[in-house]
């Protein structure tokens, strides 16, 4: 009765690979590469509704048809056949602390991250010890009718809600990596905030336990109903260790009339990772969307959070910070698309390149005809630390309406020796002086962060800046 496990899904398979501790040979993980069967198995294993399975398969077809992007960074190092597209949570939990590279452990030490959080961050354990915090947060949210869970759970427990919005903001056909994510997504956050509800505390990904927080292909969906308010924070300043080389997330956000959403990201990837993420928001009448996006680490990051302002009075704000260390390429920026009159947007990009690091600002400002009274301001600042550091700017501006107010500014600066001398003459060491210039440079970003994140962020930049002084 049993055939090749990869090809047929049956009771035994499910029993063997789904609900029990994996037997030695045939774990789901053992299969690398991508094909229809893997996608079907994944969907089956998760007991997904039929529509999701079909959605995945359709997306897979699109993925095959779409060419690789020919712009941005160098993607030639990605080998789609050499990736595990789905890891069961138990596989991840099975990783031991000893397997985490010393460099990562050392960084945890220096950042002063508590033991429990370290293991969690390193993907060692899915058990976050502060269950108490988690539960009290969840209780408070539930009372208000807020749903905050991982997307897999949401699909099981709030299927209608997920079905209504999933893939509507970023359809699989949007780009090759969105198609890939749509085919093989797992984990990510799902948030629904009911009408008029304000969530006072920032919702943080690590409040969610027993979930795959930092999957390779996470899928996040946030729905802010009319007049609601929420702040979501993903990531943390510790380097996310991933033995897998591709991280390709999709984040879709719907901000309805008069609602307000802020999405803060601080991610620090280990330097083997391709971080290719699609993030987009649809903002309706008088709604406000703020992306606060900080990218550190990775081999290549391509990420341009977007806000589509669909109705009058919508507002979009993107604050993007990228730190490109030695050998890294940060291709980041933002997109604001004005589709209605009296919409306002602002993109502020700050990049720092150190050593042979390269930071690229890539952004789109689009105003459709008829969007009178639209206002937008784009500002890109690049700071180069060393002679070998590089920065480029690709600001695309397409404006099809006359009655608009548009501003664009781009600046590149090098760390000024005179500034360093000035600071040193007051008793700061050269490292301290350089750090002070850099932290001042990203201050518009750090001041938007909750206190503890701002402190961590500065410590992290400090670590990254070490050894910059010749």
């Amino acid at each position: 009765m049993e055939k090749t496990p990869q090809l047929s899904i049956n009771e035994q398979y499910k029993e063997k690979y789904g609900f029990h501790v994996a037997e030695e040979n045939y774990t789901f993980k053992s299969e690398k590469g991508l094909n229809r069967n893997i996608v079907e198995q994944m969907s089956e294993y998760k007991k997904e509704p039929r529509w999701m399975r079909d959605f995945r398969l359709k997306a897979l077809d699109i993925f095959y048809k779409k060419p690789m992007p020919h712009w941005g960074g160098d993607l030639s190092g990605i080998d789609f056949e050499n990736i595990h597209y789905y890891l069961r949570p138990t596989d991840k939990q099975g990783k031991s602390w000893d397997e985490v590279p010393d460099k990562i452990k050392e960084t945890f030490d220096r950042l002063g991250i508590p033991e429990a959080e370290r293991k969690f961050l390193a993907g060692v354990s899915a058990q976050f010890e502060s269950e108490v915090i988690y539960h009290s947060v969840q209780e408070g949210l539930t009372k208000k009718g807020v749903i905050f869970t991982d997307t897999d759970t949401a699909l099981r427990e709030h299927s209608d809600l997920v079905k209504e919005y999933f893939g509507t903001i970023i359809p699989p056909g949007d780009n090759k990596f969105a198609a890939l994510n749509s085919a093989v997504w797992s984990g990510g956050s799902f948030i629904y905030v009911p009408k008029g509800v304000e969530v006072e505390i920032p919702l943080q990904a690590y409040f969610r336990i027993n979930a795959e927080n930092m999957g390779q292909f996470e899928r996040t969906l946030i729905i802010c109903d009319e007049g609601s308010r929420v702040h979501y924070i993903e990531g943390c300043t510790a380097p996310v260790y991933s033995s897998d080389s591709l991280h390709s997330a999709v984040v879709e956000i719907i901000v309805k009339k008069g609602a307000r959403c802020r999405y803060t990201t601080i991610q620090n990837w280990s330097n083997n990772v391709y971080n290719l993420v699609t993030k987009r928001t649809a903002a309706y009448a008088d709604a406000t969307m703020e992306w606060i996006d900080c990218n550190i680490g990775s081999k290549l990051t391509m990420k341009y959070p977007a806000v589509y302002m669909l109705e009058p009075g919508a507002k979009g704000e993107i604050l993007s910070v990228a730190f490109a260390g030695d050998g890294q390429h940060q291709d980041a920026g933002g997109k604001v698309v004005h589709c209605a009159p009296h919409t306002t947007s602002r993109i502020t990009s700050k990049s720092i390149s150190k050593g042979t690091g390269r930071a690229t600002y890539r952004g789109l400002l689009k105003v459709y005809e008829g969007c009178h009274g639209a206002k937008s301001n784009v500002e890109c600042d690049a700071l180069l630390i060393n002679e070998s550091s590089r920065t480029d700017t690709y600001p695309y501006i397409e404006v099809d309406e006359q009655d608009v107010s548009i501003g664009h500014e781009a600046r590149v600066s090098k760390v000024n020796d005179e500034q360093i001398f000035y600071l040193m003459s007051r008793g700061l060491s050269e490292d301290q002086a350089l750090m002070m210039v850099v932290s001042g440079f990203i201050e518009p970003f750090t001041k938007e962060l909750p206190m503890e994140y701002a402190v961590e962020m500065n410590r992290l930049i400090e670590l990254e800046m070490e050894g910059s002084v010749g």
Partner: protein
Amino acid sequence: MNKTSDFEIRNLHAGIESREILKGLNLRLNKGEVHALMGPNGSGKSTLAKAIFGHHEYQITKGEVLFKGENIVELEPDERAHKGLFLAFQYPLEVPGVTVQNFLRTAYNANRKARGEPEMEVIAFNNYLVKCLKRMKMGLEFAERYLNEGFSGGEKKRNEILQMVVLQPEIAVLDETDSGLDIDALKIVSDGVNSLRGPNFGALVITHYQRILNYIKPDFVHVMVDGRIVKSGGPELALQLEEQGYEKIRKQYASEAAAEPAGAAA
């Protein structure tokens, strides 16, 4: 050998790349004294200030800068600060995103740490800073502004003296702090300097004009021409210069220099 002064420059030769600007400069200064250094444009006054502080563009080719008996020419600028030296810049630099308060606390504690003293806590430091601000007649909101960013010329200079008051150096060099100041700002800046005067503080006031010396009374006045100090005296020398201009002394110096073999500074 003579007894060393608290701060002493001996036969200092320095310049940018291959161009020599300081050509055997000598100067002695003790704590408790205020010296004025005057001279025409291009005489090397600002070069002296930067060379004293170890600006990397200025190479010292010969001579010594002794502070408390130690030759400091090989030290990094921050190490010189730790020892108790301070330079008020002619053109203070802007550091966007860094508040005056944050900067000064970092600098203050860096100095304390280097001297083996405990760092000062945030709240204690802020109280201290408030006192210093009041002394400089500066509003408290100044502490929250980004370092020199968007400051007027006068505010920048005042901020330099604020930094000096906070850091309490033993020897300070004020590089044309009076330039660009209106009379009110000049008084405030001078009051700040005067408030530090005492047995534990000495200053070298570099200036083009006599005006600031009406407010900061010097004990000694030196005249610098072409990279050397050519004349020293008491406060009356400044008044004399103001009256006669630099031309006379320059001519006098030029004829003396011609009579002497070049570079034979004693």
